[in-house]
């Protein structure tokens, strides 16, 4: 009797296991075909001279050696990307936090303000780039028109923005701040979670507004700050669309980002092997920097974590 019961239970478990795999199969198949396979293939291709037409020829570490020791544009593109990430990520965090703090008030029509600040995130990058191309145009753009009194006061030449290799990176970074509303939403969501008792207690203790922000709000926002920081780092290393549309990587390679160079290696030079090697180098760089960023976790204060 017991054996029969065990058998029935075993059959049931086995059926459940099969069903489990069947239900998970769309994701599993997707992961293997669209995730694991391309990653493994790109690793293999990074050791070949694959040109997207002929059979890939195995050339060991030649692609890596060339990129690291004999490709003048590789380091230019890497520097541009690091510069972009180093400035745009902290600046984006700062603007996002300030926006969230401003929009965390209980005034009439706050929903409308929040929507307005979030709206740029739903605008297509192409449309946004073209719009900013107009705004930053040195001769007839709105930005220089608005700044003309300052130019006149200091008797200086108008800034050339994206047309100058000195200003182009900063121009793209400033433009990127327009979408800071994306991270603002995450900060706002976390701010809504902060118990009002903490502020009430601070009020009783006589804390002023700034003290409440720095002693309560910002410490309790650290989980989302670190999340946005890491997200920004990873996204920043992959950035290419805006420079592709606005500056074509110029002037003089000044906005030629790593991912843009990788894209060109593949699509313009047909050097899929070299592009794959670039992708793996980028992966290692991103991983190392992200691991470093994760060490910030010790400064994160999780609500409810008494330790």
């Amino acid at each position, binding site marked *: 009797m017991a054996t029969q019961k065990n058998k029935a239970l075993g059959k049931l478990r086995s059926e459940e296991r099969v069903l489990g795999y069947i239900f998970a199969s769309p994701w599993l198949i997707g992961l293997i075909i669209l995730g694991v396979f391309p990653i493994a293939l790109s690793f293999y291709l990074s050791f070949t001279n694959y040109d997207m037409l002929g059979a890939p020829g195995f050339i060991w570490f030649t692609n890596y050696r*060339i990129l690291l020791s004999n490709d003048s544009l590789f380091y230019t593109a890497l520097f541009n990307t690091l510069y972009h990430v180093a400035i745009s990520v902290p600046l984006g965090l700062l603007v996002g936090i300030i926006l969230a703090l401003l929009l965390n008030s209980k005034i009439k029509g706050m929903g409308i303000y929040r929507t307005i600040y979030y709206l740029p995130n739903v605008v297509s990058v192409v449309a946004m780039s073209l719009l900013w191309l107009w705004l930053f145009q040195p001769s007839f753009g709105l930005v220089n028109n608005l700044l003309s009194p300052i130019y006149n006061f200091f008797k200086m030449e108008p800034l050339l923005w994206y047309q100058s290799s000195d200003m182009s990176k900063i121009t793209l970074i400033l433009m990127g701040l327009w979408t800071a509303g994306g991270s603002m939403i995450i900060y706002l969501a976390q701010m809504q979670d902060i118990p009002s008792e903490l502020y009430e207690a601070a009020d009783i203790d006589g804390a002023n507004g700034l003290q409440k922000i720095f002693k309560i709000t910002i410490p309790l926002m650290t989980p989302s700050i670190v999340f946005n920081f890491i997200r920004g780092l990873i996204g920043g290393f992959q950035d290419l669309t805006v420079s592709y549309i606005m500056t074509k990587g110029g002037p003089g390679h000044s906005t030629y980002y790593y991912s843009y160079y990788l894209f060109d290696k593949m699509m313009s030079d047909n050097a899929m092997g*070299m592009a794959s090697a670039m992708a793996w180098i980028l992966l290692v760089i991103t991983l190392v920097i992200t691991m470093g960023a994760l060490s910030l976790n010790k400064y994160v204060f999780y609500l409810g974590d008494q330790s």
Partner: protein
Amino acid sequence: MKKLLLVMLLMVGVFALSACGDEEVDGKIEVTFWHLSPVGDESYSQVKKIVRDFNNSQDVYYVNEYGFSFWDYWDKLNIAVASNTAPDVGFSTIDDNVHRAQRNVLFNISDFIAADVAAGIETVNTNSFYSNQLGFLTYEDDLYGLPFTATTRMLFYNLDHFAEVGLTADDVPTTWSELQVVAKQLDIVDGNKIERIGFDPTFGQGTYMGYLWQSGLDYFDDELQVTLNTQGHYDVLDWMVTFNNEYSRSQLNSFGEANTILGIDPFAAGRVSMVVGTDGLYQTLLDYDSTMNYAVAPIPVPDEDGVRVNWGSGFSLELYKNGRELDEKAQGAWEFSKYLMSVSIQVEYADAVGWIMGNTEAMDIVAEGNPIITALVEECAYAVDKLFVPYAPAWHAGDWFQYYDQLKAGDATVEDTLKDAIDWYNEKQTNYNATQ
């Protein structure tokens, strides 16, 4: 469990049955054709009709056509060729056809022609195509593509502007010095602001390589070594950027960019009186319903030993192997290619898309009574395509533009531009050779 499996089987069955819905295909050999007239495009219905007419004209093959936007097409095709999922027949670019032929991804067109001739079947008449295009489609004495379209570059000039300053079509410049004289008469400047410019070599479709060719020079030698280090190369580039030396580069760039940003063609908008343009500019003017009085002429050449030549390319019609040997699908693709290259279909295609077609007999019919098209077709005979350079396939575009744009922005000298470009091409060549 059984029910679940049954449902899944039923779903698979429904999908399988739905794939067999087209009765027209029954019993025919299916051939895929990729083209550049996507659904929604003005030319789509006419291209679809051309394909439908082929399908109705015989009982052996059925062509499935897929139209893609020009901007998506090339990436899709590159990836498809790399993964053996390319169409049986499709468009590609003439200049790099030899690269695909070398890599054995295309069927040999000469073999098809020879087989037709041996069987006494009507085949394509290669005498109707431009010889320079056939040259670019030839690898080891065999054809690996058919010249479906042709393009050319000419000087477009605004006769209304000419009339304003007392010039006529007879005064159209033929040499660089004449060009300078005429252009200066057409400039209009209001204080610091350029209102209209007669001509600028860097505007429109004016290219450094095109002006080099006109000067009897080239970018690369026969060994594909870059050759930008002579006085002649310096002089041509210097001529381009100093043509309008009385204006600052910033003035010229702002003037040029105002057109680009606003999405208007500067010639069509009457802001430039003369410009080097392709046959595409003629289509642009047609699309704008322009009432402008204009004409076209060969691009002026250097005063001494100038060569009448222009950069012209085109789309090739290619038959993709997709890793297989000659089969009935490939034969179907060939039959369809012959149909597409025939005079009547080339005329119909020209009407649909407005391109200059590769079949000169067809273009004689299309151009009849139209002086602009007649001139453009005539100039195709002087068109030369750019070389395919394996170590720098984008040598004329991204590789060059980074230096050229800096020069135009006034951030580099002609000397530095050429030196930096040479260094870059040499580095690319060294690195490419190391991977071969």
